[in-house]
């Protein structure tokens, strides 16, 4: 190998030298030459890396060394040589075997080499190990199959707000095909497009958003309430590519919540009937605990009935109140004060031993209020306040 110079500092290489340099520096591809009978005539670092064979142990060997036993039995090596001779350059993919017996998927390009006269002088074979690619593809297929299997509608949104990808669940949820969806505005498919826009913009700003409520508009015109969990996703350089969003259908949950609210309302309705037990006396049994909401309702009911029936005495029975805490006591006192302003008064009845104990322990002062342990006793007080007397009917007429 002579090294020539062109007068400048550059080294000019002959064609063969250039080729040699090229081949010696390629490590990702096996570039080898075979003689016309298929024996290995040259080797390169790429070939060693891919197959595991060193140059000194492989030169002169028949190239079927790299084929799997099944391929060899099939007569594949000979077929390929024949094909190269007849067709010229061709490319294919197949399984090969390494020195250690492990298999790999290869992309092979085989070309016949001829001299200027056309005589076959050998073959050049370029082999690429596809294993990684196959693994990558397998991984990608695996990931995609998971995405398609998800029951939650998944979608990716570009920074400009357009949908870039969807899964099968999204198609089902919107009633539209993925072709119709991809490239369109994410916001279009919601009853409140502005809110949807604010949602994904928030994700781009803050990195993620949880439980973002939206109403999805289906093709059939119906709507589905959903909660979105979304986050940004990045490329290998860490740059944000878009937003990945998953929707959770909360129709059932909303229904359940509404049922609970309805039941709550019913309970409120049920538990505060204010009954007139005598002219001038109303009575109301309190069942359960008194929270702010119930107190409000209770107070309104009671006071309205007092005015309606013109009753100066109201019996409030707390036998059905399981436990009394400071808050409930405060609410009761508030109610009693309001009743006083009307010009009526409250007699608190049904004070059980446990309640009496709690009230004293809590230091709640009910000294301004008449209290009794039973409704009956309370009624007696009421009649007394009204200057009424119950008299037994006389024996004779």
């Amino acid at each position: 190998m002579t090294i020539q110079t062109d007068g400048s500092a550059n080294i000019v290489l002959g064609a063969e030298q250039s080729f040699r340099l090229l081949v010696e520096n390629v490590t990702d591809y096996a570039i080898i030459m075979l003689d016309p009978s298929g024996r290995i005539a040259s080797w390169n670092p790429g070939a060693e890396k891919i197959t595991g064979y060193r140059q000194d142990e492989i030169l002169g060997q028949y190239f079927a060394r790299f084929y799997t036993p099944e391929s060899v039995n099939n007569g594949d090596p000979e077929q390929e040589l024949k094909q190269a001779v007849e067709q010229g350059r061709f490319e294919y993919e197949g399984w090969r075997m390494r020195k250690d017996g492990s298999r790999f998927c290869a992309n092979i390009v085989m070309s016949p080499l001829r001299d200027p006269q056309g005589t076959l002088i050998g073959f050049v074979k370029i082999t690429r190990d596809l294993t990684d690619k196959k693994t990558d593809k397998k991984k990608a297929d695996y990931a995609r199959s998971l995405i398609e299997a998800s029951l939650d509608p998944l979608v990716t949104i570009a920074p400009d707000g357009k949908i870039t990808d969807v899964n099968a669940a999204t198609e089902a949820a919107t009633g539209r095909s993925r072709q119709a969806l991809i490239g369109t505005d994410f916001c279009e498919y919601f009853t409140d497009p502005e809110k949807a826009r604010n949602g994904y913009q928030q994700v781009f700003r803050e990195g993620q958003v949880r439980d973002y409520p939206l109403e999805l508009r289906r093709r059939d015109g119906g709507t589905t309430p959903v909660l979105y969990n979304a986050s940004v996703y990045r490329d290998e350089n860490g740059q944000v590519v878009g937003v990945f969003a998953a929707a959770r259908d909360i129709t059932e949950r909303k229904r359940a919540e509404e049922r609970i609210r309805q039941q709550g309302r019913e309970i409120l309705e049920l538990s505060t009937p204010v009954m007139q037990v005598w002219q001038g006396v109303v009575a109301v049994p309190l069942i359960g605990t008194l929270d702010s909401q119930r107190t409000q309702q209770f107070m309104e009911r009671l006071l309205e009935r007092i005015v309606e029936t013109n009753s100066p005495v109201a019996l409030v029975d707390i036998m059905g109140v399981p436990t009394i805490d400071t808050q409930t006591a405060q609410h009761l006192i508030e109610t009693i004060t309001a009743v006083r302003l009307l010009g009526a008064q409250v007699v608190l009845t049904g004070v059980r031993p446990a309640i009496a104990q709690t009230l004293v322990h809590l230091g709640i002062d009910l000294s301004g209020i008449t209290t009794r342990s039973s409704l009956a006793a309370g009624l007696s007080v009421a009649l007394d306040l009204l200057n009424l007397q119950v008299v037994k009917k006389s024996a004779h007429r």
Partner: protein
Amino acid sequence: MAYGNISVIKVRDILLVTVPPDPDDLTVTELQEQVLQAMAVHEAKGLIFNLSTVDTIDSFFARTVTETVKMAALMGGLTVLAGMRASVAITTTQLGLSLGSTLTALDVDRAMDLLGTALRREESSA
């Protein structure tokens, strides 16, 4: 005797004061004036404030009424607040407005009864 929409009527030796529906601060102040004037003229022993037409009261109203009750008491008159609406009673309580320990009655009728009883009691102990 009426001034605009405030009415102060003498019934026997009781003054019946009807408060207008949505009294502003000016009206409330005028009310106090009128009541005390009437007290001076008639030397009434009892006053009934008819609140049945009032649908909102604020802290100024509450304060002025309580003051008026005390002033009237100094002039020898016992006051009963009558016919307060349920909604007003609730709002008053929730806002924490106090009307002191003033007597109250469901309506003017009962207020009369109440005054009658209270004044007789006073007389017998005098």
